[in-house]
């Protein structure tokens, strides 16, 4: 287990210590006993816990079959859906991962591996992708998986009647073509090297040709759904005819416990095995309780304060600079996120995006003198910020900004608004508001969604044609150095701007990890950074150590 905060693992112990821990565990010493030994030799609780967990993982790497697994997400309701195109929340994605498959599967490092597509490749200029489909795969109703199912699934993501939430991700696919019964082709409008990773995201799960009703799920996945009760729970049992060795537990129950304290209590008392969304304030409690642990994965998900560029005060470049310089980025990560995050640099691409992150760009820091200078230049003395708790910590970040704003003479009023209806009525509609974005599979997708000049979700209605051009051009670039240079320029345009083009108006003080919690009896949770509990990939791979 490599924790994002670099907690020690079993590998970091010396040979002799390592043997003591491993032998102890093999002989059946409890977690608490081993932790006591380690703490006696000076390790902290967190470090000792991390060492024991990693040792256990190393000892028991072969998944066991059997047992039941109960997962509680944070939100559910009558709008829970098994329609992949309308999937919204962790609970939908987790159910989708249990019953369906994608064409491709995303690895922890955001590369892809084959899933229902056995092989996939592009023509030399990345304008045509060919997917060879796996043969002998059956849907839960017994029918065969063929190219028609892929064509039908993909057809739901474009066209006038499409309600797909991922429509924009595949907007540059001109057409899906069936070549033969087990080969399909995607003809692109322009070069795009990222199509396989996009198709690995939850909305592109493959459904049976002709499916229009989603009260039952007919997929090819490792589990069959036997009960679906929106807003209450779902039950899945292992698909004995699954096409590969997957699906370790016999039964998965998926529910949600809306109240964060109740959800945590349920985990602590053993009523659930996995929980989504651990409030940063509860991290300490989980780490100090034997039998449970946190599961934190560094990601590019971010908090943002949006200063709309089409109106005052966001159209004033100095005001935005003042707002950016009052952010206490390190303190936000340390105190509000309890270390489970990374500082932001007012653009969306952090280190979680790997090579596409621009480390050359200077980090913006807390600088009240600069902030005061820019505020004075802007001539603005008060502003109103609309805040909903769109992700845990958002309100605290804004309250911290309010306090800092007071120090430079800016009266930043915080108007708290409810979460429901926020995206329709407040976001992108009021001059100053907040946003959160989950991490996207590539830097290009992320910037294309929220910053491209024609993006429907351009948070600040900011238009920069140069960025739009770079986004399209960079998709076809294969030379790594050239690509990095282009991505760096894009991040600079968003964060700093140029003399004649103002930056985006986004204040991005921090990126948050996905922080969840699990029982120590559950292993096999991955670290794919695109969503909770390893990018919702756990249903196929999780297994119990106590069966």
């Amino acid at each position, binding site marked *: 287990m490599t924790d994002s905060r670099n907690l020690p693992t079993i590998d970091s112990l010396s040979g002799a210590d390592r043997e003591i821990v491993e032998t102890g565990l093999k002989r059946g010493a409890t977690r608490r006993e081993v932790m006591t030994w380690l703490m006696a030799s000076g390790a902290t609780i967190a470090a000792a816990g991390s060492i024991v967990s990693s040792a256990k993982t190393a000892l028991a790497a072969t998944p066991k079959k059997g047992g039941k697994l109960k997962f509680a997400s944070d939100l559910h309701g*009558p*709008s829970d859906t098994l329609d992949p195109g309308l999937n919204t929340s962790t609970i939908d994605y987790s159910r989708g991962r249990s019953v369906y498959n994608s064409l491709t599967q995303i690895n922890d490092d955001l590369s892809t591996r084959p899933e229902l597509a056995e092989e996939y490749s592009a023509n030399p200029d990345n304008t045509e992708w060919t997917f060879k489909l796996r043969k002998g795969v059956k849907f839960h109703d017994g029918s065969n998986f063929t190219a028609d199912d892929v064509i039908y699934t993909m057809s739901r993501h474009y066209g006038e009647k*499409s309600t797909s939430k991922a*429509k924009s991700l595949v907007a540059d696919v001109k057409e899906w073509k069936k070549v033969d019964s087990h080969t399909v082709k995607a003809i692109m409008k322009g070069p795009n090297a990222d199509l396989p990773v996009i198709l690995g995201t939850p909305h592109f799960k493959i459904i049976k040709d002709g499916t229009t009703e989603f009260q039952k799920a007919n997929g090819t996945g490792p589990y069959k759904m036997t009960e679906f009760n929106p807003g209450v729970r779902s039950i899945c049992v292992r698909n004995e005819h699954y096409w590969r060795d997957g699906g370790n537990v016999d039964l998965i129950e998926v529910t949600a416990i809306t109240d964060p304290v109740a959800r945590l*209590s349920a985990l*602590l008392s053993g009523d659930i095995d996995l929980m989504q969304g651990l409030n940063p304030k509860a991290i300490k409690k989980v780490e100090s309780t034997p039998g449970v642990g946190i599961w934190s994965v560094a990601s590019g998900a971010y908090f943002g304060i949006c200063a709309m560029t089409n109106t005052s005060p966001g159209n004033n470049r100095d005001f935005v600079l003042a707002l950016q310089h009052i952010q206490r980025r390190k303190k936000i990560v340390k105190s509000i996120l309890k270390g489970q995050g990374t500082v932001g640099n007012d653009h969306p691409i952090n280190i979680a995006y790997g090579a596409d992150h621009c480390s050359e760009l200077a980090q913006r820091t807390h600088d009240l003198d600069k902030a005061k200078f820019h505020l004075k230049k802007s001539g603005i003395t008060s502003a109103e910020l609309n805040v909903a708790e769109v992700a845990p910590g958002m309100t605290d970040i804004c309250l911290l900004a309010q306090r800092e704003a007071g120090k430079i003479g800016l009266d930043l009023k915080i108007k708290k608004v409810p979460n429901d*209806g926020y995206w*329709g009525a*407040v976001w992108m509609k009021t001059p100053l508001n907040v946003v959160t974005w989950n991490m996207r599979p590539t830097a290009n997708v992320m910037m294309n969604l929220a910053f491209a000049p024609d993006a429907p979700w351009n948070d600040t209605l900011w238009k920069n044609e140069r960025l739009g051009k770079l986004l399209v051009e960079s998709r076809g670039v294969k030379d790594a150095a050239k690509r990095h240079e282009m991505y760096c320029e894009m991040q600079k345009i968003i964060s700093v701007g140029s003399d004649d083009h103002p930056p985006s108006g986004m204040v991005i003080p921090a990126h948050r990890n996905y922080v969840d919690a699990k029982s120590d009896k559950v292993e096999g949770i991955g670290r794919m950074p695109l969503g909770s509990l390893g990018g919702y990939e756990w249903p196929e791979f999780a297994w119990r150590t106590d069966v």
Partner: protein
Amino acid sequence: MQRMVIQRILIGLVTLWVVSVLVFIMTSLLPGDVASIVLGQAATPETLAAYRAANGLDQPLIFQYFGWLANMVTGDLGVSKAGGAKIYDLIAGRLGNTMFLAGLVALISVPLSVALGLLAAMYPGTWIDRSLTFGTLALISVPDFFIATFAVLILAVQLGWLPAIASVAPENTFWQMARGIAMPLIVLVIVVAAQMIRMTRAGILNVMNSPYIEMAILKGVRRKRIILRHAFFNTIGPIVNVIALNLAYLVSGVVIVETIFAYPGLAKLMIDGVQTRDLPLVQACAMIFCGTYVVLIIMADVAAILANPRLRNPK
């Protein structure tokens, strides 16, 4: 009396209709509609239009309302605009859960609180009365989420006696069911009993000042007999009304307890419906809640009449 009951039922139906109009207007006034909430951050003008067209949300509100009303009268509750599930399926299981919990709570709390209220009234000023008064006042003042969270902390997390969440799955055994429902049951009994005990005690002591009680005292009747034979029957009117209101609360108002114990009941369903602006769902829940109030209050009035000879045989 028959006339009164029929009259009440007719008024009840009018109330239901007025409530349905009000709920419809109020929910429509909230910012955003079901399409913009379901599509959330990912909404675009095209997908919004497509979603509205696919779910009949592009019609004028007035048509949507009368369409709903026409279906409702024929017993068709429609489908959820947010997830596509049949409203009947969403409600049926939860209505059962809510009634099961409310019924059990009533079964325990009503006899318990009437008995304790009588006990307190029988011996006013004694330590029994004082401790009951103190206890009930303290419990009325503590909000239910506090009692619930506290109970979870002690009984589930610390002692591990009861599960932290109240699961009532069909495959559960009787014992699992009993353990699962124990905690919300305890919390709700505490919450509703306190108020009913106070009302019973106050009602009886109020009647104790009437001239006919004085007469009974002068006749030399024992206090216990005065209360059980003379005072109690004359207090039934106000007591059953308090009981009715508490029972209606158990059906419609226990959203906090449902949330804390993740108990799938109706109150939480309605909140979910309001949050997603899912009009047919909100309407269906509102009708059930309003109907419950109407029925319980009619029953309370009938009980009050039956218990009171002067109302039973009007001149």
